């Protein structure tokens, strides 16, 4: 069953405006937060068990507590560079409830004593940008932003920064580089952003959904949030679902919700004539699950990890029996090849190699040992670079090959597609 904590009022007309948002209890969390001690807010978020919703799933309260205890200026950055293929929940949230995110940001900024924050929004997201920008102006007018917010003595400024179209900028240090006006590529860690981030000052980067969840947690308390989900995966998660299902879209369910129920109830089951074949649970970087594995799984961090994959960003990609896995992998490899920033050699060169290999297998211009080469290349790209893009490109390869090897070998041996017969890999580009 859907459990709309964050998405509760999303269908109310005008909820994206300040009036609409306030009508349904908006900015009460902020009023509450400004009366709390910043440390208590951090404790509350820590107690809620909230984990970062951008993909890595790291404890949000814990992340905040890594900030050094000094008087240096610090920054809060909202990561709205939602670029993971299959993921479109942040767009939905920013378009329908921008104030929820803004309120979460002001509360979070108050907790970490930041006077300045930015929403780094994906360049392609023009509509959400317009909506968020307008919402910020409304918040300034209402006194939720600017000097002496609601008479509390807390000053905070919030700006929107538009990206220039690079997937990698969703990685937090690359986002910081880009915000600094540099080429958007990841930075070496250490130092970590919490110690030395934007403009070499302590910086926290949180995902849109995470910050929206902070609003809910402050309104309702950590204990209320913990009622949902499991011990280690608390609360709810917003998923964006695509594929040949009856009801693709954005859904919020408790963590640890069985995927089988999710597919049948929320997603309305497979479209007629399509059979469920495989699942990419959390955006294209997550290893694929077979239908059998997926139908036994629950949507939470632990269960996904035990299956060798990740909950990721919640970009659920449902693959049906009419899809060729070779073709699909080639599409993904084209994407990662295009998006590798080019800084680290294994990723820069490896992503191109992977695309060329998958493409030549798709075209039937390969030998059987290319499957082994593909696997070997991917495995040697894993864990060898500054950021996780190399792994993100390699993980699908390794999992596709281990679970759907027959389709790859068929392509090479028979020079045609096992699924479609006539599969035009690369036809998309």
């Amino acid at each position, binding site marked *: 069953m859907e459990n709309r904590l964050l998405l509760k009022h999303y269908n109310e007309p005008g909820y994206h405006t300040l009036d609409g948002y306030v009508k349904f209890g908006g900015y009460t969390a902020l009023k509450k937060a400004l009366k709390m001690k910043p440390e208590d807010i951090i404790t509350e978020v820590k107690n809620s068990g909230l984990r970062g919703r951008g993909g890595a799933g790291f404890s949000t309260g814990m992340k905040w507590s890594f900030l050094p205890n000094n008087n240096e200026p610090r920054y809060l950055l909202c990561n709205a560079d939602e670029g993971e293929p299959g993921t479109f929940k942040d767009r939905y949230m920013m378009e329908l409830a921008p104030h929820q995110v803004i309120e979460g940001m002001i509360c979070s900024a108050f907790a970490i004593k930041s006077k300045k924050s930015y929403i780094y929004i994906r360049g392609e997201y023009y509509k959400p940008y317009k909506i968020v920008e307008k919402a910020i102006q409304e918040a300034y007018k209402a006194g939720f932003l600017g000097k002496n917010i609601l008479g509390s003595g807390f000053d905070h400024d919030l700006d929107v920064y538009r990206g220039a179209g690079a997937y990698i900028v969703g990685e937090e240090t690359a986002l910081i580089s880009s915000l600094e006006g540099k080429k958007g590529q990841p930075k070496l860690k250490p130092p970590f952003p919490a110690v030395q981030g934007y403009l070499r000052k302590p910086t926290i980067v949180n995902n849109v959904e995470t910050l929206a969840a902070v609003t809910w947690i402050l309104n309702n308390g950590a204990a209320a949030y913990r009622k949902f989900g499991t011990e280690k995966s608390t609360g709810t998660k917003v998923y964006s679902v695509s594929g040949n299902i009856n009801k693709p879209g954005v859904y919020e369910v408790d963590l640890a919700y069985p995927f089988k129920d999710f597919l049948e109830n929320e997603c309305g089951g497979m479209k007629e004539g399509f059979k469920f074949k495989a699942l990419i649970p959390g955006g294209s970087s997550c290893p694929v699950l077979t239908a059998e594995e997926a139908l036994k799984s629950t949507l939470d961090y632990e269960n996904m990890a035990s299956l060798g994959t990740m909950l990721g960003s919640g970009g659920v990609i449902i693959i049906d029996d009419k899809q060729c896995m070779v073709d699909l992998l080639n599409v993904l490899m084209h994407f990662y090849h*295009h998006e*590798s920033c080019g*800084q*680290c050699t294994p990723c820069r*060169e490896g992503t191109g190699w992977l695309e060329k290999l998958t493409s*030549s297998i798709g075209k039937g211009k390969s030998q059987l040992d290319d499957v082994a*080469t593909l696997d070997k290349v991917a495995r*040697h790209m894993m864990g060898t670079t*500054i950021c996780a893009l190399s792994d993100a490109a390699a993980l699908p390869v390794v999992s596709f090959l281990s679970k759907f090897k027959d389709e790859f070998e068929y392509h090479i041996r028979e020079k045609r597609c096992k699924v479609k017969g006539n599969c035009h890999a690369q036809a998309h580009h």
Partner: protein
Amino acid sequence: MPKLTIDGKPVEVAAGTSVIKAAQTLNIPIAHYCWHEGLSVAGACRMCMVEIEKNPKLQIACNTPVAEGMVVHTNNDKVKDAVKWALDFHLINHPLDCPICDQAGECKLQDYYMNYGLYSPEMNQRKVKKSKAMSLGDRVVLDQERCILCSRCVRFTTEVSKTHELGIFNRGDRCELSTFEGRPLNNNYSLNTVDICPVGALTSKDFRFKQRVWFLKDFETLCNGCSTGCNVTVSYNQNGVFRVRPRVNQEVNGFWMCDEGRDIYKHTNKEFRLDQVIERNDQVGGAAVKGKPVALAIQEIGKSLSATVKKGGLESIALVVTAQYTVEEYEALFELFKNTVKSPHVYYWKNNEEDFDSFDGLLNRGDKNPNTKGLSDTMTKFGFKGTWEDFEKQATSKSFQYVVVAGPEDQSAYPDLEKKLEILNKAGEVIWLSSCKNEKFKNFKWQIPMKSFLEKEGTFVNFKGIKQNIKAGMSIIPTSLSLQEFSKGVFESMGGMA
């Protein structure tokens, strides 16, 4: 100070030291392309992977600081496999055009392939094509396909020369090194990018295709281009000198040298040198007599000087010196003048003194002599105080019988040379000691070939007072002399007068 073990060997280094530097102190080699001691850490080439116990993933040695009790492995199977693959990723799109590549023989791709690779390539796809032989500026050429994008050169122009000409553009395997629009790589330190380029991507226009590096021999000496005294390595063979590259000396020049200093070898090669004695013979109408054996010439000079000394007259012989010789040479020459010739007329010929204090903030100084301080110190030691101005005052009309001149080795550093030569000519019969030839010397009585700084040993004192030695690395003009040899010869032929 944290103690750690690398490949079983214990080592103690200062806190904050990187693992790669700690390994260096133990002489344990760790492959690397992007890391350079004189630049910030990029961590991009991923060659310096090492295994650190209790760490699930391999770590890059360049960005990992040492820690107490750390146990590092640089050579186990896991590391070897990682390095081999990191190398392979560098090579899959490399054009492998070693036969026509100027870097061949000193290329880190070749070296590491021999050390860590030796595999059969599995890459059977089309390579990425990029442009070749692109001029980046007056002195540097780029081959885009060979570039491994280690960003050393970019960091050099950002952090050291601070001229910001270079950047890496585009993404992924379409990444290209290039200059920013309208900003060619023309700073006075541009050739350092060629030195630090670990592959054949950046090559020097001056050096490329002149020699295969395996036909060259190296020796270590100093740059004589200015008073900084950068430590350099000179590459040469029987055909002459081909290039000059900086050598690390943290006290003097760090890792770098300027482009101006790269040209110091040029005047030392045969075609520019005074390779024989030239005498002006007045009996045949002032025609030049060439090729008299040096020993004979010195004997004749000695005899003339000794006759002049005997005739007496304090103003009979003068000595004019430039700051382009070694301390030992000055001592020998001053010794001769003080005790044998017994002339107090020793003058210091300074070139463009007004520029002596100019400094570009990095290495290059306005004083274009390698031994200004050495000369003034030695003059003080011998009690000589004469300046060029003093000489000019004395030199109105044949006030000296002979003027012995230790002329500049690098004549380009003396922009007003011609004017000065006239004054010298007016002052008396000139015995010109010089390593390079010049038509303008034809009125001088004697021209004696001297050794260039590459052919002799001795001390230069740099602007800071640091004493450094040059070495006799090679012989270019076998008949040429050092000032010691000249002084000794003259002394002997003057009958060892005291």
